[in-house]
């Protein structure tokens, strides 16, 4: 069965989707803000940021603020395209249920997630 086009296993965890959603609107966002928005711990946010950076979806930089080094994240053009595509797929899946088209796609996506 065909995997829905645009589904992205890197962006699938809700916290990563939330981080990408913020970065899609802001030029850059600071670690503390992303932590507040996702409601996750420091280590969990760090892991999500590392996964997104490894996929080439974001770039991280350290910058001084109030005398402390802070981590800033920025979405890359690859990340922006992947985010848009993933959101479109989610919207299509959410909308397609009434027509009964999602069964096969659901199984295919689960297979991809197990592999990821």
């Amino acid at each position, binding site marked *: 069965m065909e995997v829905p086009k645009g*589904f992205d296993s890197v962006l*699938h965890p*809700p916290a990563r*989707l*939330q*981080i990408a*959603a*913020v970065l899609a*609107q*802001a*030029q*850059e*966002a*600071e670690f*503390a*803000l992303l932590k*507040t*928005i*996702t409601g996750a711990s420091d280590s969990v946010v760090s892991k999500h940021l590392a996964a997104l950076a490894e996929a080439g979806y974001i770039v991280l930089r350290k910058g001084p*603020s*109030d005398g402390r080094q802070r981590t800033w994240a920025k979405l890359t053009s690859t990340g922006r395209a992947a985010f848009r595509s993933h*959101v479109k797929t*989610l*919207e299509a*899946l*959410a909308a*397609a*249920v009434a027509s009964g088209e*999602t069964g096969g*796609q*659901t199984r295919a*996506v*689960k297979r991809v*997630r197990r592999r990821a």
Partner: protein
Amino acid sequence: MDHSEALSALDAKRDAQMQMARAATCPPWRHGLFGLLMGGLVASPAFDFPIRMGILILILFSIPLIVSSDRKRMGMFINGYRRGKTRIVAVGILAVEMSLYAISVWRAFDDHDHVTPLVLGIAGVLIGVVGSLLWQRVFVREMGA
């Protein structure tokens, strides 16, 4: 992934955008400052060269300070010309302010009229403040907050 998972993922995204919109809400002084910068630019031709240059340099140096202040206060920086409906507002503000500035320059340099630029400067402040408030309102609405 099924329908409910897709819906809950979209809810999580919406929730993040709403929180972001709340975090991006600017205090009144920030809207006022933007209005003053715009009004200062429009009114600047009313003054003699040294003062005019002083105003323009002050405006130029204020921009990175505002960006830095926004980053520190909100933990992010949102470009005014970002994609979306806010771009229409941003371009609209710029077009009106630049038109006022052009009229101001024309009146001050061609007709040696130094009152009109001051009056237009006050209009520039008001348009800047209202435009900034409108931009924020459109952004918050776009984020679903």
